[in-house]
């Protein structure tokens, strides 16, 4: 088995202590566990601190627009469906700006893996509240504390039709890389919502807070086989906060719906047109 460092000449620019470091390591470990090298995998990045990762992660990739990594990923997947396609996205990127794409990618059961760096803030724009921010969180855009209810990415995915929904923690390297491997191996839309401490703009939810509150759902005997139960768990956030696999289901992925992809990837499909028959219908 060959292992890859995926390194470039850029150094990570995340704040010291940022949860993104841990996630990055887990991502690389997961790739190595699956023996996927820089030319074997495609990463579509959002814009945010999370997205900056592309500069130190050498693979086929696309650092596109804020909120749009899921459509890009789906386009790539449809054109090259044998390649694993992952999204590196944030809570602002994926659930704020890109919320519509999120529910629709899940609905289509697009065969992509979404790694959501969930820190409750817009990190890169210096700390406004994101859609997952918990009530009370004081940020630049909510000087008196967040008032509305947060959105749960996991619950949204479950509602919209995702077939693999999990939550991980940036501080749990091994657990997280295992979840990523499962998510990538899953055929269909997979989400790993990753609890990520932002040490600079979200002081309320740091490593200690998460360590104290999370518990491993799958070791409680919970079986991820029921959408309603999964929804219930995905909405849970209080004294205890579950991590692990919430839901898993086998259902044809979006790319399974296209007959022609059984032959070859779209990129390699020739242009075959019988001009006579093509024009016949217009005569």
């Amino acid at each position, binding site marked *: 088995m060959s292992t890859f460092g995926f390194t*470039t*000449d*850029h150094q990570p620019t995340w704040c010291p202590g940022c949860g993104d470091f841990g996630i990055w390591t887990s991502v690389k470990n997961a790739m190595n566990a699956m023996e996927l090298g*820089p*030319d*074997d995998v*495609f990463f*579509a990045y959002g*814009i945010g601190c999370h997205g900056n990762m*592309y*500069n130190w992660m*050498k*693979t*086929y*990739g*696309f*650092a*596109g*627009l804020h909120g*749009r990594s*899921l*459509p*890009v*990923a*789906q*386009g*790539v*997947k*449809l*054109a*090259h469906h044998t*390649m694993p396609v992952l999204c590196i996205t944030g809570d602002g990127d994926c659930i704020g700006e890109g919320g*519509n*794409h999120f*529910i*629709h990618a899940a609905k289509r059961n697009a065969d992509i893996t979404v790694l959501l760096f969930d820190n409750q803030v817009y990190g890169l724009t210096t700390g406004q509240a994101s859609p997952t921010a918990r009530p009370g969180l004081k940020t630049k855009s909510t000087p008196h504390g967040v008032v509305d209810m947060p959105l749960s990415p996991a619950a949204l995915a479950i509602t919209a039709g995702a077939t693999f929904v999990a939550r991980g923690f940036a501080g749990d390297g091994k657990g997280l890389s295992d979840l990523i491997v499962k998510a990538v191996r899953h055929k269909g839309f997979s989400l790993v919502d990753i609890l990520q401490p932002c040490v600079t703009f979200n002081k309320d939810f740091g490593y200690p807070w998460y360590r104290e509150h999370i518990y491993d759902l799958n070791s409680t005997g919970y079986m991820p086989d029921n959408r309603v139960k999964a929804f219930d768990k995905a909405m849970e956030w209080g004294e205890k906060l579950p991590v692990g696999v919430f839901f898993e289901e086998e259902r044809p992925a979006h790319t399974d719906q*296209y*007959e*022609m992809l059984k032959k070859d990837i*779209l*990129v390699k*499909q*020739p*242009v*075959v*047109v019988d*001009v*006579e028959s*093509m*024009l016949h219908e*217009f*005569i």
Partner: protein
Amino acid sequence: MRDTVTWKIGGEAGFGIMSAGIMLSRIYARSGYRTFATNEYPSLIRGGLNLVTVRISTKSVDAMSREQDVLVALTKKCVEECKKDLSENSIVIYDPKDGEYTSDDFPKPVRLMPVPLLAILHELNASLVMRNTIAMGATLAVLGGTLETFSQIIKEQFGRKGDEVVNANIAVAQKGYDYVKNTYGSETSMHLAPGGAKEELLIINGSEALGVSAVRAGLKFAAIYPMTPINSVITYLADHAKKYNIMYVQPEDEISGINMALGASVAGVRSMVATSGGGFALMVEGLSLAGMIEAPLVIDMGMRVGPATGMPTWTESSELDFVISAGHGEFPRIVLAPGDAEDVFDLTTAAFNLADRYQVPVFLLTDKYLNESHWCVPKNYYARTVAIDRGKMITEDIPDSETYLRYRTDVDDGVSPRTVTGVANGNFISNSYEHRQDGLMTEEANERRIMVDKRNQKFAAIQSAAIAPAHTGDDNADITFVTWGTTKGPVREAIKLLSGKNIKANMIHFTWLYPFPEKAHEMLKKAKRLVLVEQNSMGQLGGLIRKYTGIHIEERILKYDGRPFFPEEIVKRMTL
């Protein structure tokens, strides 16, 4: 006997108005005539008044005439709305049940030919949807045609539904035909002169033409959110996806559409989107992204009446400035605007090659008039071979010893070779941030400047491929019309009308709008008197010309009421 007849049919949506127009066009196209059909309908699904106008001629047809010679009115409202556009001695076919008229009810004297459509249906126990078939039979009698080709088309069209349906349709057609012959005699003033040599002609609307051309050009991926006037592109692609190994995806919105298309493009397939102004507005950020990552993309931008929702089913050409300047930051793009179905073929196939060759977004500025009119075009025009040039694309693995630089700057046309996904050692980042040659981010002043210069270098390279405007008509004309896109046909016919008045006019017609074709300057300078003709209220091409040449065209004929130009109207609005 006449060279040309303009026929119009009108009724509520659901009456089969559109299909009657297509069928009439087909009948005559198969019989050695040229045709052209336009439609008008309100932005609703049922009710209202749908109109189709078909011009049939022994010669080529470039535009619709302002007046009609035959009107088939399936509702009273149709008579009311359309009578003002009938020419002298026009024939009006209508069901007397819908209303009784005398010639005096019309602005100009017309010949009334009531045909008891409903009564005939009743008599033959035929269903209401066949009303248009009777009207077609009656039409053929009026135009001096036969039922032969029509019957053939009925067989082809309804064959799948069984003999009963076919025969019922033929029977009602015959009834309509006979009714006219028997009641009004076999000669009318509207008999068409015999058609010419029979050439295989396509009756195709602009959207279908674009779909066919795109497939010919190797289109593999299209993500299109529904929107008038490009819905027929969706229908064409969705219906033919399996047959031609192409992928049509309906995205949740236009933003997703363009980003999916860019993903597919970067992965290595020819990819396109189609939309109208409002949908394109949502793609503007993605356009800027395409410019930055240098991804090929073809955008069918179907114009209609704006701003905002405007008049969604009517025509206008007011998105020229918009598409040229859309997107934040500066980057090259190409803007093409077909004027008719021939142009659609040429420019669509060119668009895909240009997009790949220069790694830029390429616009096909179409409009409602182009997309939804049914054009008549020789099959041979569309049967030509299409050369596919994917540009600088690397599909072979790169040796371990080489370092691949996606945005290498040592190229003199600004275009760097790109890999497709999966090429060994070919990985790179398509980066929306400013980047170095390897695609990774830079904020360094010098690297930024170099990368802007690289992208801007394409302007010169593209200019060398630019298509000069078409100069048609007398070189020494006194009047030179300057126009673009679909005003081509009306202006061309206006020139003919002027020549009938012994006024020599010619036309400079732009299909390549941007980067502004340098050759246009000389052409414009030579003209004695320039007259701008545009389907918008601001004279956008005029602005573009002044911006790039300094030439100010003061004389302008602009139309922005949602209706296409009629040749007569252009002549009328000239100060002669």
